[in-house]
């Protein structure tokens, strides 16, 4: 793609961002396909159609697209109203603005009233790196998980996002989709793992350790597990793509099978996946040690995302190191 005559080949502008984010192609394409298939879908965003790729949805179905402008609270409440007329609204913005700025609208207008709205919180976690704390979302799982009636899904990669969007079509409850920057490495590109809301995907079993990960952390967790298994530490991985309702049975199996359960999330260790898993293990009384790994109740530094993952030990090597410490090897 040429940016402008006379510029270097490496130069790029806003629109080329989408080319580099397959996760956002799948978002727009899946929703547009669902419209083609007859689903009463309306999609909109708050001045971020180039960041989340919904511009491609707009091109295919301009009559089903709503531009809300930089009015996130208005967008979420409007989606609630749209849903009462029989439409199925999908609204998208950065996860930080969705979960924090529009929290009350999500809770009172959508979840309490049981409107089947799909909230897309993209660029979640620390994917916005050097954009800073205002754009980091490391408490959104804790917030959304505590709202009654709201389903919370964090897909691991592009393929799983597409599958989750399709699985959600007839889901009777509102959903918060927590997605990254559309550039997650492939986990499920081969299509061999069917997606069911509320049913975790178990990758192998480990007598020493089960890593329970969600969203962007599934891929590095699988890499870490491979290294751990090679090194003689029996490790399984659970992809907990649905954070609520949590697959408590998968957690129970992990807690019964393994000496240690390690949760990994691109999120504060308080209230998110780690909190949810710890609640289940404690209430069942298994006595299994749960180690929560993530952002340790702090505001993340700024920096390029890959550097931040390394710094917070949220890459494969970091997760492996945390796991080795946890199992005492």
């Amino acid at each position: 793609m040429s940016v402008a005559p006379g510029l270097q080949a490496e130069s790029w502008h806003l629109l080329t961002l989408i080319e580099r984010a397959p996760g956002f192609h799948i978002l727009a394409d899946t929703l547009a396909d669902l419209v083609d298939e007859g689903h009463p879908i309306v999609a909109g965003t708050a001045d971020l159609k180039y960041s989340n790729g919904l511009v491609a949805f707009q091109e295919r179905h301009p009559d089903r697209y709503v531009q809300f402008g930089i009015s996130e609270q208005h967008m979420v409440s409007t989606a609630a109203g749209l849903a009462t007329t029989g439409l199925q609204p999908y609204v998208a913005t950065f996860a930080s603005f969705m979960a924090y700025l529009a929290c009350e609208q999500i809770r009172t207008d959508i979840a309490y009233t049981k409107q089947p709205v799909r909230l897309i919180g993209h660029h979640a976690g620390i994917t916005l790196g050097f954009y800073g704390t205002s754009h980091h979302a490391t408490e959104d799982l804790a917030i959304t998980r505590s709202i009654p009636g709201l389903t919370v899904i964090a897909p691991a990669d592009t393929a799983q996002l597409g599958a989750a969007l399709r699985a959600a079509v007839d889901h009777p409850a509102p959903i918060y989709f927590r997605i990254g920057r559309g550039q997650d490495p492939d986990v499920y590109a081969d299509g061999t793992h069917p997606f069911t809301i509320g049913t975790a995907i178990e990758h192998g079993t480990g007598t020493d350790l089960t890593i329970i990960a969600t969203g962007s952390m599934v891929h590095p967790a699988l890499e870490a597990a491979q290294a751990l298994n090679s090194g003689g530490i029996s490790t399984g991985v659970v992809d907990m793509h649905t954070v609520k309702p949590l697959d408590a049975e998968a957690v129970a199996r992990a807690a019964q099978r393994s000496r240690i359960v390690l949760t990994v999330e691109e999120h504060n260790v308080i209230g998110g996946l780690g909190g949810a898993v710890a609640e289940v293990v404690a209430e069942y009384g298994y006595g299994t040690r749960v180690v929560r790994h993530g952002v340790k109740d702090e505001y993340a530094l700024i920096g390029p995302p890959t550097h931040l993952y390394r710094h917070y030990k949220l890459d494969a090597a970091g997760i492996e190191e945390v796991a080795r410490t946890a199992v005492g090897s």
Partner: protein
Amino acid sequence: MDIASDSWYFSSMLTPTPPVTDHDDELVDLISERALFARLETVRLISIAKTGHYASGFSCAEILATLYYGVMRLRKGEPDWPDRDRFLFGKGHAAATLYPLLADWGFFDPAELDEYTRLGNAFGDHPDMTRIPGIDFSSGSLGHALSTGTGIALGTRLQGRPSNVFVLLGDGELHEGQIWEAALGAAHHDVANLIAIVDRNDHSLDGRIDTVTNIEPLGDKWRAFGWDAHEVDGHDVRALLATFRAIVEDPERTRPAVIIANTVKGKGISYMESEFGWHLGWLAEQDEINAIEELRNNR
């Protein structure tokens, strides 16, 4: 004292629809009578709860009665009719004044109101769409309803339905930033089937609006946001009817409209009209009897 009786409710009179008439004088009389009915029922319901928003309901009684008996497309006993007009109560704390009108339309049994605010009852200080037939959207947190109303108006328009969406806002509610997000958004998308009404009773909880946070010049603000703005005496039923009709019967309308209804908070009870502290309150037995008498005499 028996301040209410089922015979107040048209829905108990086996009429096929509320007796809306095309004859304006009769219609104005009917609406005025229903506004009194709404006020008297508000007094009765608050006497059950022993606390409530008398004054906020009294300021919009004529607005509600005009909408429900002279303006809105509704079908008796069919609160979910897809082609109906919608009503959203931004200032949801005055819901006790709306509930009797919904019962009157046969959306639920008026007897259900006898347990108003009791443990587990559907009818509370704020309206709940999940439990009350005829409530088109829940409210309570100020500032949301113009957005939810925009969504309903967009959704019905997209599906080719003829519905108008009426959103009654408090003037204090206009302090909420989301109102102005919605004002921008509805104008941008030419949501012409959205009609807001501002119950300008000049008061919020802490006193006069102009001392709390000034919102004037109000008509100019809405016009600057791209809305058609009208101003009317919110207790003058004939003027309200004419204003609503001018909007909904205009085939050329392309923009959302707002009616700024100048009202008196506590309208109908002399001491409530002059004391903002009656935003929330309760009347002991003899005071309640006197209030009912004054309401009847002021009709």
